[in-house]
């Protein structure tokens, strides 16, 4: 019998269906009698809707219905919500405009859904949409967050002055002002953190069904958190009572945050299915995904670091203007506030930090969590500043960091977070060895001799994962506590089902969660089924984002396993006529201590269901336990990424020569899967730093609306990565797990820009480092002279 221990890399259980084309994604599911939905979207960024004429569309072949915001309102379907309340400095709650699933009166970004056409085929729905006549009164638009704050800027929501959703602060203002007053040196940067479009390879999709006999609605959808979708659709949007709504997220083809949110289209499909009395299916095409999936990042920041005469950091002051788009998406308000400013201390001992963030409406797609969600933006600010501070003080960037590292734990930062454990010097030292920093100067000289410019850049990042302790996030404005649930069902034959509130959309939970059960119960992973993603099967859960599945989801499973083991010991004790406290459980065997009497796990599980004469006041039949786990703290993965690159000043082409990542994720369940997560994160980080950029023109048209215009990282854009690990187990959860999903996306962008500015010996560079921009930077002196 093979046990798959924690820390080993069994091959993934889920792979077989994916490599043979037997995956079951939402668009693969079809229902008898299903109709197809196509959303008619606003071509304008800002306009008043004077009228919608559906008559011609309704006469088109195959068109079943054309529904608009009017019908939505008639049926009492509520607007989409933002689930995290943020208060401004003056104590007033954030100002959120209404967000109807189909536009009412006004459209507020190019891509805003105006009507849905439902037809017999997808092509007929699309043809029908062409025939819907919408009379628009086009209004001026604003797409840049800084410009949107201007008194003369057009208003996205008429009732919200200056387009300002909140003007928020965090940290110790007075201490920070004093720190800057006493500083020997102040280093500052103006930063634009470029807007990104998440682009999971599976576009969003929804299949809504309604059973008129039972009144039950079923929604198959591409969600990272189906239970939260059900709760929001039911309690806030009012689609159906919670017990009459089943949400299923089957195989989901990547998410990266963008499939957390409860969107208009999914909402409309389940409502429309009831309204037209047929299953209604919608699958986004990629162009729609570009327009309507929540985007990420888009921060303008001014940041300054105060240093004493020994290059020790005295204080950090940050002012950020965050673009939130035209509506507040589900977690939009938390991303540039509590998920951002709380991480500004990085790995450094900074006595005083003060951050101000203005959240701003613009006529662009909503902006919400994308891989890292606030933490990449924070890390970019502090890691760029630290590198610049090292340069201005004449210190090696490694030495500057070492001088300022936090070295004792727990460490309370001035921005809420209390780091529980870490060893930042260990990951830095290991990364320096792998990157062969000692010989960098020689490599630079070799490049120079070829007419190339070589640079090296560091990023010693920290992340907060495992969102989140309910007490903490509740007091910070979250609408729900972010615990996780698990149920472990042992079958009579000793095989096991685990029902988890986590959701896997590429992370490999079917394997890693099974490893935990295998190592605890001594049964092979093939005898363990991980069940997730169906609100009818799984008890309430919070889903997967922010690397919470290991630290929170698996901790819930561990807790349920504790209960299973305790009960199984009682049953074993009864069967072997011993005291429960004398039973030892190891390698799948229950033994009476000090004897050779033992029972195998399946013998005990069988007895649990078929056993007779249990002392019923002590033992109930069955072997099934559930647990809810509310974490004690966030977890704090950290590490050091180093980028070494070469620039060809004649073409502006940047080549990453070596990318080194050393991460401390605490206890690692499956190193193969964790390495894969790091690879993918780095690729998205390199994407942000070198390739990707979402651009709207001043009229609010998305110029980067397809793979022809938005540069997705391709195989030839990326190097192979060199990884290493250090480990300080997390003391805040029973498994010692910290989380690994976002590390690469957080750490890579500042490492790359630090390397690029080192190579070109320039102060700053705005991402992405496309050849044209790099060529201009490399030839700035020449360009200025001309």
């Amino acid at each position, binding site marked *: 019998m093979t046990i798959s221990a924690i820390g080993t890399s069994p*091959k*993934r259980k*889920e*792979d*077989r*269906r*994916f*490599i*043979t*084309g*037997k*995956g079951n*994604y939402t*668009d*693969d599911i*079809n229902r008898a009698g299903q109709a197809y939905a196509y959303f008619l979207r606003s071509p304008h960024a800002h306009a008043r809707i004077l009228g919608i004429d559906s008559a011609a569309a309704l006469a088109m072949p195959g068109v079943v219905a054309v529904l608009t915001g009017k019908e939505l309102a008639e049926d009492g379907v509520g607007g989409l919500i933002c689930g995290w309340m943020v208060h401004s400095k003056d104590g007033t709650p954030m100002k959120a405009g209404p967000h109807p699933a189909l536009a009412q009166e006004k459209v507020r970004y190019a891509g805003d859904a105006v009507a849905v056409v439902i037809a017999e085929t997808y*092509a007929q729905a699309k043809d029908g949409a062409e025939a819907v006549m919408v009379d628009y009164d086009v209004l001026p638009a604003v797409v840049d967050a800084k410009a949107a704050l201007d008194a003369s800027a057009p208003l996205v929501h008429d009732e919200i002055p200056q387009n300002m959703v909140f003007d928020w602060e965090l940290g110790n203002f007075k201490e920070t002002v004093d720190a800057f007053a006493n500083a020997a040196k102040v280093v500052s940067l103006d930063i634009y953190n470029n807007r990104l479009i998440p*682009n*999971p*390879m*599976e*576009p969003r999709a929804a299949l809504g069904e309604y059973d008129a006999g039972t009144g039950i609605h079923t929604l198959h959808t591409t969600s990272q958190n189906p239970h939260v979708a059900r709760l929001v659709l039911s309690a806030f949007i009012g689609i159906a009572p919670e017990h009459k709504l089943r949400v299923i997220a089957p*195989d*989901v*083809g*990547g998410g*990266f945050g963008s499939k957390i949110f409860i969107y208009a289209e999914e909402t409309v499909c389940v409502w429309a299915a009831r309204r037209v009395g047929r299953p209604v299916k919608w*699958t986004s*095409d*990629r*162009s729609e995904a570009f327009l309507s999936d929540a985007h990420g990042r888009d921060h303008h920041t001014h940041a300054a670091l105060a240093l004493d005469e020994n290059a020790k950091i005295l204080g950090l002051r940050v002012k950020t203007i965050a673009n939130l788009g035209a509506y507040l998406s589900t977690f939009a308000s938390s991303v540039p506030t509590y998920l951002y400013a709380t991480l500004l201390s990085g790995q450094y001992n900074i006595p005083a930090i003060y951050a101000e963030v203005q959240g701003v409406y613009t006529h662009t797609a909503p902006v919400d969590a994308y891989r890292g969600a606030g933490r990449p933006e924070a890390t970019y600010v502090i890691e760029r500043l630290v590198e610049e501070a090292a340069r201005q003080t004449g210190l090696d960037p490694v030495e500057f960091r070492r001088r300022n590292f936090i070295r004792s734990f727990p460490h309370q930062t001035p921005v809420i977070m209390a780091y529980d454990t870490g060893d930042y010097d260990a990951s830095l030292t290991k990364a320096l060895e792998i990157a062969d920093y000692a010989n960098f100067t020689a490599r630079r000289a070799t490049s120079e001799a070829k007419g190339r410019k070589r640079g090296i850049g560091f990023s010693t990042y920290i992340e907060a994962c495992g969102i989140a302790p309910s007490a903490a996030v509740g007091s910070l404005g979250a609408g729900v506590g972010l615990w996780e649930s698990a149920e472990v069902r042992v079958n009579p034959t000793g095989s096991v089902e685990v029902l988890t509130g986590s959701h896997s*959309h*590429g*992370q*490999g939970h079917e394997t890693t969660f099974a490893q935990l059960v295998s190592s605890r119960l001594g049964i092979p992973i093939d005898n363990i089924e991980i069940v997730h993603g169906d609100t009818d099967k799984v008890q309430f859960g919070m889903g997967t984002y922010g690397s919470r599945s290991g630290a929170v989801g698996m901790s819930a499973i561990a807790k349920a396993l504790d209960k299973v083991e305790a009960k199984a010991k009682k049953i074993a004790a009864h069967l072997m006529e011993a005291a429960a406290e004398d039973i030892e459980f190891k390698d799948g065997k229950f033994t009476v201590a000090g004897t050779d009497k033992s029972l195998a796990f399946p013998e005990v599980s069988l007895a649990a269901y078929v056993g007779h004469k249990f002392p019923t006041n002590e033992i109930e039949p069955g072997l099934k336990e559930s647990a809810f786990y509310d974490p004690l703290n966030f977890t704090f993965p950290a590490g050091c990424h180093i980028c070494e690159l070469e620039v060809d000043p004649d073409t502006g082409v940047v080549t990453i020569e070596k990318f080194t990542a050393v991460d401390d994720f605490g206890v690692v369940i499956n190193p*193969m*899967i964790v*390495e*894969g997560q790091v*690879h*993918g*994160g*780095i*690729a*998205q980080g390199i994407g942000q730093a070198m390739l990707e950029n979402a651009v709207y023109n001043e009229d609010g048209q998305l110029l980067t609306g*397809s*793979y*022809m215009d938005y540069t*997705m*990282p*391709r*195989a*030839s854009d*990326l190097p*192979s*990565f060199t990884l290493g690990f250090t480990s300080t187990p997390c003391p805040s959860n029973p498994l010692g797990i910290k989380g690994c999903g976002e590390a*690469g996306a957080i750490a890579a962008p500042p490492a790359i820009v630090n390397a690029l500015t080192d190579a070109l010996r320039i102060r700053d560079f705005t991402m992405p480092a496309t050849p044209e921009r790099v060529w201009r930077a490399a030839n700035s002196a020449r360009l200025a002279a001309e």
Partner: protein
Amino acid sequence: MTAVSMTVNGKAVTAEAEPRTLLVQYIREQIRLTGTHVGCDTSQCGACVVHVDGLAVKSCTVLAVQAEGANVLTIEGLASDGKLHAVQEAFREHHGLQCGFCTPGMIMTAVDMIRRHPGGLDEKTIRAELEGNICRCTGYHNIVKAIEAASQAMGQREAAE
């Protein structure tokens, strides 16, 4: 609507298609083989790669009617007699997939790539050859390793035969 006939995974099939129906739509919706995926609408992502008469093509750039009479191989037809193809095995062995959505197209591209490079494949060539396939999960690191390993395994297998 016209009846369009072809051979898919060794089986003769006939189904209705509009003149504008894409081969990928025909395969997914008419033949109900949903392993071939649609990840974009500009023929960039490669999630829809199948083999038509032995050549890897993006089935979103071919009309179903153009494939009349053709011999089409999809991801579902790659394993034979329940035995995985060497490329499928290599993707699993080297963790060359995460969410699995781009995987069928990646594997079909890789099979074709290896066939076109009987002398073997190095990292640089593999990365260049993957130009038409986008993956958002893996950073390509393990996909490249998987294709390299499959290329070697297939070379050795052929040498042994």
